[in-house]
Structures are given as structure tokens and as C-alpha cells.
């Protein structure tokens, strides 16, 4: 029978994806970029929508929430997975509302009356069955996938608005978005890029070689020289792992130092982040730096006996507060950090913030 085979096939796919996430997160840096993770997650959710058995929107949402919880638990630091799940949940709500006929936009404006009177009214509404709902949801997810594929190009198209000629631009580590951004600008303008290598993984080296192959004049500096060189830098352009709900960043370690140095010299700090990196999490004392990797990268085992007497830390991420950031460039345009909360309410439904 096709039913159970499809189901086992689906669970296999999900299991494969989960083990991939678990493996890919540990070790020297991500083996896959966040864009790929986002795409794979969305594709998997589409498959779930297509193949799983559900009758009403509420059921579908329950299934997706359950799978989503497992996926985020597999790799908590990979926030794009959770973001995509929340996007799909929002899509489902929208499609449901459209099928029902009521305009979800009116409902979204949380009028005082609505807040005070209707409590859990919205939950019950998802029990109705609509035949074309499946097709609509899958179509919407396809649109989301096309949007995901075009994010890097959309960001790079804005490059010439922000980079003028003979500028000195600084960046840290390796970000595919920033690389595409700078290469696009380099086609028309001549400028100089300084890359901080970002120890201990030194992803900056790869970034520098890629940029120099595109003909951009690049210089690699050690992390310790960031402040020393900053007085000559005109702009700092960085990528990030996650954009937090308050407008802050969770970025690769060393970024906070870079942001402080830029603030001291009044150099603008520009973050190139596509919208799928925006996460509804707020920064928290406990989980802001919750990812560490093996300290072997910092103090190798060849150091001998002192290893047992020393604590070694190797955090992967840094938290950058929103006061240090000047501009976010995303696939839908440029925004100030104070506008991020508004974008979040457009992308995610407030009830989905906790999966």
C-alpha cells in the first residue's frame, strides 16, 4: 500500500535530516550554510504537508510543531530551522483564514476590544476542513522556497548603494552573503577589504582568498589587530548567524570586539542578513553563549601536562547589542535595528514564538 510506504519514507527523511543537523553542528564550523539548512527544512516541511495524514489545519500545525521541536532540539544553535517552521505555521494560518473568507489582516491588528474579549477564540477555528487548503499551503511553501533562493541575490543587488570607490571595508570571518555582496560591488567599484581571520577556525582565510580571486584588494589581519587598524576603516560589513528579536546579533566570536571598535571610531556597522535569520528569541543570560566546541582548537593536546590544570574555553558565538549596529541589509531592503520587532510581527505569529 502506498500509504505506509510513504509514511516510512517520510520518517526516514526526517530522521536523516535530524542526524545531519546533529553532526553538522559540531566540529569546526558549520558544514553547511544557513541558507541550505533553511531550504532543506522548508523542503522537508513541504513533504510533510504533502504526505502526512491530516484533516484540518490544526492537525497539520500539531504535526509540524512536533517535528519542529525535535529538529530544534537536535541542534539548538541552528536557529534557521526554528525560523522556517514558524514561517510555515504562519503560512498555514494565513491560508486557513483566506479559505475561511475572513481577512486575517484585520484580525492581526490586536485591537483593545479583541484583546480583552476574545481569549482562545482563534484556537478553535482551525478545526474546519477545507479541501483546497493542502494545495494552497503547498503553493505558499513553494513561494517561500523561491524567496529563499533569491535572498543572496537580492542582498547583493543593494551593494552599490552602500559602497563607494576607494573605501576601506572591514569584515570578520566568512559569510557567504557578505562575500556575494562585496563581489557584486567590485564589478563596478574599486575598494579595499580587510578581513579579520577569526581564530581559532580562521574562516577569514578562505574569505580572503575568494575575494582576492574576484580581483578585490584584500588584506588578512590577525584578530588582535582589529582595533589597531580600525582608524583607517570606512565601513564595517559583517554577516551573522542569527538576528535576535531586540535587534541584537548572535554572530561569530570576535564580532562584539569589532562592533565596539567601530563604535569608538564612529564607523558604521552594517549587517547583511537575509530574513530567514530573524529569530523571535530574546537574548538571555543563560543561552546567549550556549555553544562551545572542543578547546583542542585553542590549546592543543600537544601542550602536555598543563592541560589538566587549566580551564580552556572556546565559545563559538558572540552577542552584539543593538546599540552598536547601524544598519541591517536584508532581502527586503535596509532597516534600522529598532525596526526589527515590526518585521518579526509580519513574519511570525506571536503564538508560534514558543514551539
Amino acid at each position, binding site marked *: 500500500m502506498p500509504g505506509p510506504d510513504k509514511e516510512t519514507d517520510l520518517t526516514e527523511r526526517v530522521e536523516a535530516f535530524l542526524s545531519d543537523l546533529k553532526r553538522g553542528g559540531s566540529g569546526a564550523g558549520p558544514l553547511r550554510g544557513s541558507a541550505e539548512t533553511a531550504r532543506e527544512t522548508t523542503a522537508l516541511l513541504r513533504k510533510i504537508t504533502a504526505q502526512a495524514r491530516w484533516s484540518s489545519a490544526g492537525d497539520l500545525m500539531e504535526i509540524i510543531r512536533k517535528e519542529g521541536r525535535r529538529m530544534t532540539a537536535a541542534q539548538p544553535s541552528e536557529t534557521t530551522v526554528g525560523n522556517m517552521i514558524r514561517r510555515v505555521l504562519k503560512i498555514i494560518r494565513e491560508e486557513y483564514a483566506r479559505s475561511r473568507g475572513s481577512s486575517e489582516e484585520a484580525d492581526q491588528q490586536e485591537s483593545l476590544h479583541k484583546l480583552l474579549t476574545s481569549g482562545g477564540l482563534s484556537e478553535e477555528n482551525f478545526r474546519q476542513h477545507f479541501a483546497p487548503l493542502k494545495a494552497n499551503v503547498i503553493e505558499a511553501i513553494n513561494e517561500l522556497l523561491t524567496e529563499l533562493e533569491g535572498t543572496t541575490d537580492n542582498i547583493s543587488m543593494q551593494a552599490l548603494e552602500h559602497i563607494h570607490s576607494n573605501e576601506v571595508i572591514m569584515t570578520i570571518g566568512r559569510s557567504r552573503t557578505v562575500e556575494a555582496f562585496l563581489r557584486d560591488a567590485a564589478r563596478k567599484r574599486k575598494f579595499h577589504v580587510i578581513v579579520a581571520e577569526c581564530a581559532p577556525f580562521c574562516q577569514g582565510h578562505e574569505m580572503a582568498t575568494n575575494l582576492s580571486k574576484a580581483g578585490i584588494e584584500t588584506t588578512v589581519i590577525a584578530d588582535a589587530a582589529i582595533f589597531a587598524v580600525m582608524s583607517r576603516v570606512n565601513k564595517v560589513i559583517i554577516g551573522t548567524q542569527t538576528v535576535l528579536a531586540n535587534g541584537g546579533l548572535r554572530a561569530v566570536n570576535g564580532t562584539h*570586539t569589532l562592533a565596539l571598535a567601530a563604535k569608538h571610531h564612529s564607523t558604521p556597522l552594517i549587517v547583511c542578513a537575509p530574513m530567514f535569520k530573524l529569530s523571535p528569541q530574546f537574548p538571555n543570560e543563560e543561552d546567549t553563549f550556549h555553544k562551545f566546541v572542543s578547546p583542542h582548537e585553542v590549546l592543543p593536546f600537544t601542550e602536555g601536562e598543563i592541560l589538566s590544570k*587549566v580551564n580552556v574555553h572556546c565559545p563559538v558565538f558572540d552577542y552584539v547589542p543593538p546599540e552598536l549596529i547601524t544598519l541591517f541589509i536584508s532581502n527586503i531592503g535596509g532597516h534600522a535595528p529598532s525596526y526589527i520587532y515590526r518585521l518579526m510581527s509580519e513574519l511570525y505569529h506571536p503564538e508560534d514564538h514558543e514551539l
Partner: protein
Amino acid sequence: MLLQQQRKRSRIVKMADSGVTDGNEKKGDIERAKNEGKELTKEEKQRLRKEKKQQKKSKEKKDDKAIQESGKETKGDSSAVSAPQPSTQSTAQKVPAPVSVPAPEAPTPAEKPPKSKAELKAERRARQEAERASKQSKKGDPGPQGAVSKSKAATNELQPVVKRLPEHIQVDNPDVLKKLAKKLERQQIPLRLDYGYKVSLFSHLHQYSRKAPLTQQLSIPSTVIHPAIVRLGLQYSQGIVAGSNARSIALLHAFKQVIRDYTTPPNEELSRDLVNRLKPYISFLNQCRPLSASMGNAIKYVKKEISNIPSQCKEEEAKRKLLFCIEWYIKEKIILAAKAIAESSIEKISDGDVILIYGCSSLVNHILCEALEKNRKFRVIVVDSRPRLEGREALRRLVQRGISCTYVLISAVSYILPEVSKVFLGAHALLANGYVMSRVGTSQIALVAKAFNVPVLVCCETYKFCERVQTDSFVSNELDDPDDLIVTRNGQTHLEHWQQEPPLGLLNLVYDVTPPDFVDLVITELGMIPCTSVPVVLRVKNVDQ
């Protein structure tokens, strides 16, 4: 009317000629001084420099006036304009220096149109009078010279010091490079060549490769350079001896060896010859690795001591005296200073402190070990950075003594700083405008510590105080071997072929400057001072000497 004009013209020509002969005569003075082998004193050198400037100016004005004059000659009017000037000239003639001698009529007869007989006669007469005047002024010269030098000495304190720019920050100037090459050839020291593509922002600095040490170009046996100095140079260039205290102490020990092996050649004085012997050694060490501020101060001290040896002193006694002076310097300025600084710093360390240190500073390590012996309870966080990774050495030393340590890289400093209660930093030099010059990364740590409101204390001996001023890390710095940045991760070495890709450059800075607003306190053996009091200490030191 004509006679008046002639007389005026002759006076003018006399002035012009005497101006020229004056200049020639000054040149003769310089030649004489050189031939005698005497070193010109500071005042004399300044005076000569000023005179050369004046001569240049006068030459330019002569050319200008010549053009003017040739124009005026065609018009037919000559001395009316230039008449009032010679009167001022006459009063100024006796004072050899500052007044310019704008000779109105250039003594370049080739440019002028054919003269009348009267003018030729006037010129001949003027020349004779000029020679007579020069003979007189030769006799009278020491007089006004002495008066001038006395007046100069009186205003010496606030006079602007005429500084020469050090060669190592003018690498992009080909004249300076040529001069350096000539000087090294004279001293028989090989010139070290720059390596690799230099980032354009730093094209004014040298960049050497560690794989090509200077000693490979030396012939064995080298008669010019003492073997102790050769060994020292090699240790510097390979990084075996690193850290400003270690380098200074090694230098002074090498000098002691040089002095022990020195014998005065006949017909020479020890005080002058030994200083001249040391000059090629210092050039050699500079080529191996640019001198640090502490080394510079130590060398100044040694040279001063040598030149203060009285000429009637016997060689053995002089050598003993010099060795004693050097040992005194090491003991007083480095070892005892470290003890004094440790004592004051221990007051600042309380029980339960978490202290952050950066890199390997011998002074900071000493302070922490002393604090441990005084039974203070604290723990240390060692921050390290690529490519030198000096923090590992500090970590080993501290762990050996039993201090509990944590180790992170500099990119994780924002993570670890909320735990820290104090930051102790070492310094390479303290500049006269209050900036701290130290290992690259120090300013970054001070910046982040300031953002988290953690106090930053800098520990520095006074012999590292330097009269230079600097506001950024570009103008004067040291570029280390760029290949040090290359690293292999996951089996991939991305930067291996960086030389083949022309737009790619690697930058390996050694020092950076920390602005004084990031530093809360400087601990020296003279006490705890704010960063901005460095020029006060320098002034006090100068008055003492």
C-alpha cells in the same frame, strides 16, 4: 648723480660679494672642523644648519633678483629699488647667522648685459675690498661666533629640538634607503632586503622574512662584528629572545662582553674609539630587528657613560668602571624596579580577584608570582592571540607556580570579561603624550574592558619611557614575517600561495598604541601615576641627568 649711483652699486656689490665669501668662509670653517676630527657641538651643528638654510634662501633670492634685475637692466633702472636694503645689510653683516643676505645684484656676470667701464672698475674695487674684509673677519670670527653660541646656549631649554626622522619609518623614500645602504657598506654590514607584498598602508615600514636571517650574508670569520653581537642579532631575528626586558638585558650583557674583549688601539682614546666601535654593532642589531624603546634608552646610557670616561683613565680601570655602570643599570632600572612595582601592585590585588592578563609580560608574571607568595587568593585568565601565541608561555610559568588559570583566545574576550575584576597589562614603551605602546591586541583588550567597566592597570618601568609621540598604530610600527599568519585547518591551508595572488596581502603587526582614556592607572617604580603624567616623569629624569 652717476657717482652716487656708482657708489651705491659698489656698496651693493661689496655686500653681495662679502655675502658670498661669508658663505664660502663658513664652509671653510666646517671643513676645518671635520679635518680636525672634532665632533661639532650641538649648538654649532644647529648654527651651521641654519646658515645652510640661509644660504639656500639667499641663492633662491639671488636667482629671483637676477631675473628681476635682468628685467630692470633692460629698462635701465637698477639700484633705486635695492638701495634701502643694503643699509640694513651693513648692520647685520657682523652677526654671521640669521639675517638673510638677499644680494640684489647677483654676481653672475654671465647673465647681465655688457657692462660699462665704470661698472667693471667698481667690481674690481669691490672684489679687492671684499678680500680684505674677509681676511679681517677671519680674525674677528671667533669673537662673534662665541657670542652667538652663548646666546644660543641660554635659550637652549625651550629651543625646538631639530630631530632627524628615524630611518625605519621612511622605507618608501628611496633617498633614505640609498643613504642607509651607503652607511651599511661603510660599516661592512649586509643590508637586509624586504620580503613579500607590503600592504599599501604600511609601505613606509620594513617587512622581513624570518627564513632569511641577516647572518647568512655575513662571511666567517667576520672581523667587524663581535661574535657575541652576531649571536644576539640572530636570537633577535629568530624570536628566541623576545620581550623588551629580555632584549635589553641580553643587549647589555653582550655589551659587557664587547667591553671585556676590547683593547684600545694606539693613538686613540677609549672614550671616542669605543663609541665608534659600537656604532656598526648597533646598525647590525637594527637590521636584525628594529630596536625597541628600552634598548634605545639603554644604548644612550652606555654611550653617555663611555664618553664620560676621563682621558687620563687607564684602560683596565675604565673597563672596570664601565662594567660596573652597566651592571648598576640592569640592577637598578630593571630588577629593583620590578620589585618596587610588584610591591605597589600587590596592594591592588585583593582576595577573590579574577585577573586578566594578555600575552607574556615578564613584569606582570613577576607581580602575580609575588602576590601568590604573599598569600593572596586570586585566579588568572590568560588571553592569547595568533600568530605569536605568547600567552602559552605565560600560562606555563603561572601553572608551574600553582596559580589557577583559564586560557582563551582574544576573540573570546567579550565572553570572559563579565567574570573579570581587574586587567593587568604590560607595556613595551610609554609615549610622551600618554599613549601606551604594547603588543598588538592590548588596545583591544583595554577597549572591551572599558565597555564592561573593568579597571585596566598598566605596569611599566621608567626606563621604557620614551620622548616620542604617536596617536595611531600606523606611523611607526614593526611588521613581522607575513608567513606567520598561514595555518593549516582541517587539512587545508588556504593562504599557502598568497604570494601568487597579487591583490592579497597579509599583515602581521607587532605593536599597537592604546589611548590614555582606556588606561586607569600606570604602576611604575616611582609610584602609581595616571597615563598623562609620563612627560612629567621624563622631565624629572632629564633634570636629574
